[in-house]
């Protein structure tokens, strides 16, 4: 069993009590809610006649259903408007802070939490969204929960959880040029599998993580769940503290200095022990692209789609299912695959540094005729900063659409969707069948810089050759 890791320390500090089932009743420091998975939870709360136990520790925003062309109310989609109204009512009735568009802080829930300083080291964070693992980038233990558990956190600010094992994932060395955090997370999932992390918390570390920015660490932690790990984290360090300094909900002055002392102390000790360890060489990671229907089905840009003959018997049916759906052929190079749509955004890659990386590529050319290209900032704050730097103009000049913040085409619960069998180069996190809104639509996951390169070439391309 792991000992003296950040996970163990945070878990122990937040333990209210051990339950007779062997599970832990765990206090949740920050509860983030959004319009899709909370309405039923509030309905259950009303039915039980319960209050929200810690309304000051609960924060709401709207992201999944919000349109990205015009966010003027009422939304054209009546169902979306109804969900928005329900969240407004619930926040009002229970005294919960709602970061709506008028607040200037609206955005994808996993973008705004860190941006507002709500996400802090040593905290436990829950949200009714699987990509809550994102917040682990700060050394928080953060996990996605279902709606019944959203109700539990609203009612008690706690969850009943079984303790996880801890796997240390060490990425040593240095990443090559044109290789981004997205490629690191895709490489990890490719090696460990889409269910390899079940039962584990992932602790990411090593030279590569030491030098990644907080935004890059978020990209990796965001996709911990795509590898089956409910949470992933990076130990907090100076970069973490500097990111938080001056944020709206971060402590100020002396309190900040005291907080830093505490945050330092939750990092895994030098003597920490782990349930498992896996090592990667950062230099071996290439810009990566998915070719299949789960995020583990990916290849380096210079590689070919696997052949059934190269795989164990047990993996062949999945390869065949994936390639039939994708309309791709085994043995073909992934580079050169034509695309119809390019999407830059999401909780994985919708932050300022992502947009900067994509803009750098966008400056080298024009979106290919026939390709629909969207850039969707992760939050109003990201949009403001990007606009202040002129990134919106860069994208528009290159033929990209510059949109309002939201989840957009990552999951298509809003008007941004693929049509028919369109194939999309996407900076999002899931290439599941139908994920981007069309039951036959196809997704190729890659870094935002690679998406921009694909938009300009009209096909999957090596960003290192474009720059």
């Amino acid at each position, binding site marked *: 069993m792991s000992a003296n890791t950040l996970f163990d320390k945070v878990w122990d500090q937040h333990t209210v009590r051990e339950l007779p089932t062997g599970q832990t009743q765990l206090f949740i420091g920050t509860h983030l809610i959004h319009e899709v*998975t909370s309405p039923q939870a509030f309905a259950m709360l009303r039915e039980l006649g319960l209050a929200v136990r810690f309304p000051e520790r609960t924060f709401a925003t709207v992201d999944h259903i919000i349109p990205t062309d015009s966010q003027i109310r009422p939304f054209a989609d009546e169902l979306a408007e109804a969900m928005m109204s329900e969240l407004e009512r619930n926040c009002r009735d229970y005294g919960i802070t709602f970061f709506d568009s008028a607040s200037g802080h609206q955005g994808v829930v996993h973008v705004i939490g860190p941006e507002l300083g709500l996400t802090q080291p040593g905290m436990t964070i829950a949200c*009714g969204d699987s990509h809550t693992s994102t917040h682990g980038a700060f050394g928080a233990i953060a996990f996605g929960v*279902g709606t019944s558990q959203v109700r539990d956190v609203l009612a008690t600010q706690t969850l009943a959880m079984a303790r996880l094992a801890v796997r240390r994932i060490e990425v040593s060395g240095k990443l090559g040029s044109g290789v981004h955090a997205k490629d690191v997370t895709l490489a990890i999932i490719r090696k460990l599998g*889409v*269910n390899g992390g079940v039962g584990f918390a992932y602790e990411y570390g090593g030279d590569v993580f030491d030098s990644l920015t907080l935004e890059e660490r978020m990209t990796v932690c965001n996709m911990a769940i795509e590898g089956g790990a409910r949470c992933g984290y990076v130990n907090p360090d100076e970069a973490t503290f500097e990111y938080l300094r001056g944020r709206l909900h971060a402590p100020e002055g002396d309190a900040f200095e005291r907080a830093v002392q505490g945050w330092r102390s939750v990092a895994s000790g030098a003597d920490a022990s782990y349930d498992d360890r896996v090592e990667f060489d950062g230099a071996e990671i290439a810009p990566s692209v998915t070719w299949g229907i*789960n995020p583990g089905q990916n290849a380096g840009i210079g590689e070919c789609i696997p052949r059934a003959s190269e795989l164990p018997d047990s993996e062949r049916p*999945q390869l065949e299912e994936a390639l039939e759906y994708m309309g791709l052929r085994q043995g073909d190079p992934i580079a050169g695959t034509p695309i119809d749509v390019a999407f830059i955004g999401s909780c994985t890659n919708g932050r300022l540094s992502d947009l900067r990386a994509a803009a750098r590529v966008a400056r080298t050319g024009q979106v290919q005729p026939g390709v629909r290209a969207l850039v969707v900032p992760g939050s109003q704050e990201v949009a403001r900063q990007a606009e202040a730097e002129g990134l919106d103009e860069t994208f528009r000049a290159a033929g990209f659409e510059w949109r309002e913040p939201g989840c957009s085409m990552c999951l298509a*619960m809003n008007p941004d969707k693929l049509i028919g069998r369109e194939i999309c180069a996407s900076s999002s996190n899931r290439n*599941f069948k139908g994920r981007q809104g069309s039951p036959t639509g196809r997704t190729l996951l890659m870094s935002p810089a690679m998406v921009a390169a694909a938009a300009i070439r009209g096909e999957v391309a090596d960003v290192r050759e474009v720059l």
Partner: protein
Amino acid sequence: MAERTIEQVVGSAAVLRGDDIDTDRIIPARFMKVVTFDTVGEHLFEDDRKAAKGDHALDQEHYHGARILVVGRNFGCGSSREHAPQALMRFGFDAFVGDSFAEIFSGNCTALGLPCVVLDEDDLAALMDAVELAPDQSVRVDVEAETVTSRAGVARARIPAGTRQQLLEGTWDATAVLLDAGDEIEATAERLAYVTGF
């Protein structure tokens, strides 16, 4: 709040082959534009079923009325949406037997009182074959004995000890248990520097 104890689920079963079946397939996101769970059962596997044009397992007449769904590896991966187990439950499934389940999915199932049990590879293959051969047979998912019984025999089933206890005691809906902690919750909060303001 939970009162019902779940010792076993007995009924006919349906086999849904395939690994890594994600929650977007179980309930496509566009059907989550709702503020209740009332309608999600109507859209269970909607896109997969349309694409299969009547050949999808759930559209086979011999699986009509099945209470147990037999699945492969990593079933329910992806999104945390409770809409997925809600849709399966409202369609009529009360238990799941598989090679493995995604963690958030199985947690959501527990919160609804739906057991997810895991079989060894050979036992699962034998169960799938047996059910496909004779779909009208009764299958027993026994949470208490940790077995799955079918014409393929009695297979040893695994379920996390805590989950098993929750189902057997009727405490699978955790709210009441969590509320029982009373002031201990506030006491824990008061020990956290970020709660008290550093």
